[in-house]
Every structure is written in structure tokens, then in C-alpha cells.
């Protein structure tokens, strides 16, 4: 099981699980247009669900990917992370497919080769006031959905075993447009406001 150190550092919502959040073998949104969402680009600041402030810098890269540089802020700030992501819209919902590359300068998991075979789906919403919220799949709910056959996937052994959704792209995208699919996403782990 991969330790998801950025979770410990930035995404405090996952502190309890201390393992990699659910991943999808295929990125979300391959059946729709995967284009970088221009609304994201720029710098955002906000707080994790446990109140820790951070800055998110979303940088457009060649090839349509977005680099996210996430830097902790406030007293005793010490952590930073490098994430690459793509974005896609499925109906009215917008998703990121995130891959952690570096945590404090160290390849996630200590070795790029141990990266999970997939990407972390993140549901993001921007409300009328311009507040951006980020939600990842709840691990327990995702495992329950896999066990119930609602979505195809694998679960590693043990309570801390990682969940991987292995559904084909079309099935995945279809599922994530249903209430059952969207219900897998937990409460936001970050709430951000764009820095003008």
C-alpha cells in the first residue's frame, strides 16, 4: 500500500485513512472532452477541512495538462506538493484526474515506480461566489460500492487496502453522472478562493 504523504501534509481529510485515496484505472471523462478548465488557472488560497491554510497554484502546461503546486501557508508551514492533473466535465459536474508526483521534493511513495496505476478523481465545484471546493472519493463508500457491484473495481486486502476502480471508461463516466456515483465523493477536503 502506498503511503499518501501529501494526505498527511495537505489533504488532512484523509489523515485517518493514511493510505492512497481511491483511484480510477482510467481517468474520469475520457468519453467527454478533456480540456484544461481555464477557470482553475491561477492562484487560489484557502483552508483544508481541518483549517490549515494553503496556496494552490494551477499552471497550464503544454499538452493540456495542469500542474498544481500546493504550498502550505501560515505558521510552521513546511509542506509542498507537486501534482499533475487533467480536467473534464461530465454533465454539470467537473472532475480532476490527479497524480501526485512530488511531496516535499520526494517522489510520492519514495519511488516513481510505485505510483498507483491510475489517477485520483477529484470532484470540484465553483459556486456563485467563486468558492472552489475539492472532494475526493470516500474510501469506505467506494469500497462498499465496489463490493456491491455498483462499479467494477478491486480492493486490496486489509482495512487499509487501496481501492481501485477498474471500470471501463464509458462505464465509469456513466456511473459518475448518477446520484450513486456522485455520492461517493466525500465532503470537501479543501475550500479555496481565487487570489486576484
Amino acid at each position, binding site marked *: 500500500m502506498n503511503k499518501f504523504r501529501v494526505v498527511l501534509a495537505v489533504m488532512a481529510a484523509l489523515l485517518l485513512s493514511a493510505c492512497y485515496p481511491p483511484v480510477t484505472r482510467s481517468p474520469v471523462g475520457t468519453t467527454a472532452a478533456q480540456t484544461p478548465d481555464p477557470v482553475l*488557472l*491561477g*492562484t487560489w*488560497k484557502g*483552508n483544508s477541512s481541518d483549517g490549515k*491554510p494553503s*496556496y494552490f*497554484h494551477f*499552471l*497550464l*502546461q*503544454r499538452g493540456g495538462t495542469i*500542474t498544481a*503546486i500546493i*504550498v*502550505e*501557508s*501560515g*505558521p510552521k*508551514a*513546511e*509542506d*509542498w506538493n*507537486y501534482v499533475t492533473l487533467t480536467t473534464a466535465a461530465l454533465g454539470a459536474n467537473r472532475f480532476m484526474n490527479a497524480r501526485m*508526483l*512530488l511531496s*516535499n*521534493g520526494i517522489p510520492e511513495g519514495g519511488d516513481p515506480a510505485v505510483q498507483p496505476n491510475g489517477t485520483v478523481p477529484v470532484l470540484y465545484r465553483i459556486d456563485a461566489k467563486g468558492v472552489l471546493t475539492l472532494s475526493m472519493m470516500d474510501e469506505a463508500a467506494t469500497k462498499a460500492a465496489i463490493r456491491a457491484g455498483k462499479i467494477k473495481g478491486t480492493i486490496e486486502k486489509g482495512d487499509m487496502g487501496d481501492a481501485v476502480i477498474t471500470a471501463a471508461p464509458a462505464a465509469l463516466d456513466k456511473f459518475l453522472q448518477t446520484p450513486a456515483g456522485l455520492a461517493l465523493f466525500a465532503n470537501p477536503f479543501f475550500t479555496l478562493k481565487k487570489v486576484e
Partner: protein
Amino acid sequence: MKVPSFAFVVLAGLSLSACVSVKEPIGTSVGYVNDPALEGLWLSAPDDKKPPSYIHVLANDDNTFTVVGVAQKHGDDKASWGVLQVTTVRLGANRYMNVHEVSEDGKPKEADGPDANIPLLYTLSGDTLSLFAFDDKKTKDAIKAGRIEGKITQNKFGTGSYDTVAITADGPHLDAFLKAMDAPDLFGPVMVLHRVPPPR
């Protein structure tokens, strides 16, 4: 001397410091202690052409700083980010930092030797951080006058030439020299950063 390309984007002013190298980082004879006044987020002074860059200064347990700099895409300039490692030292009343580029856009920089280190003088005034680099001409004059051991090499470039200035004094001699009250006179301004108040 090799100039970090990241510096051109995020710490553009540092490129000016590329003309003078030091044999050893500043402060090796006294050791490094992180200056807590540097911690936090800084913005480069915006100009008419470019938006400010974000400079995050994060303190490490080993008395080094990790600096994460981010510049958004602007015009033809692509978005860029980089990581620097910085040590700080106080010599007398003067404050110095040694800047070492670690990576640019996620790719490690493998610069080594004297060229890998950018020595800077810095001052803090309220929420303003000013960075100064060795002034090429003044440093050459100091070397010629025998005030500090160094080497001036003339290099041909096209039809013209330029000088490479290397301070070759060892650590203790460099530190003693830079402790003097008038040592800042050898430096020229390269950039100004403004502190972003920490989130409440």
C-alpha cells in the same frame, strides 16, 4: 557562470548576480541558522509587463529553507515554477543567503561547484525584503586592490568580451571580509519582495 533559467522567470533579478561566483558559500566558518524573518509568502514587485511571482519560503529542520517559486503564464512566457534551497547567515550586521537551485518545472538541476551557488546580501525593512548581489565592477576593483582574493578572467564573446569574476578566498577569509561594515558596498540591488500577510 551558469544562470538558473528558473531565476529568469521567477527570480529574474538574480540573473544579475551571475557575474560573480564564490569558491565557498558565505557563512561556512560560522554555520547556518535560519532567519525566521524570511519564513512565509513573498511577492515579487509587479511591473507593468508581468504579474508578481509567488515566493514561498518554508523552513526546514536542518537550518535550510526550501523556496518554492511560481510564476503564472503571461503573454509568451509559459507558466513556470522552481525550487531553491537557501541557507542564511548573519556576519556582523550584515545578512546573507546562499541560493542553490534544486529544480525547475519539476526537473532536477544538477549544477555543482561554485557556479551552483548564488550568494546574496539581503535586508529586511518592515514587510519588504531586498536582495542584493555582488556588483561586478565593484568586486573586480576589490580584487584588484587586494581586499579579497579572486580571479578575473576575460572571455571572448563574438566580437566583444566579458569578464568572469570569481572570489577565490576560502570560507573563513570570505566571511571575515563580508563581516565588515562596508561589505554591503560591494553589492547592488537585484530585486525587491513584499511579504504577504499570513492567513488568519
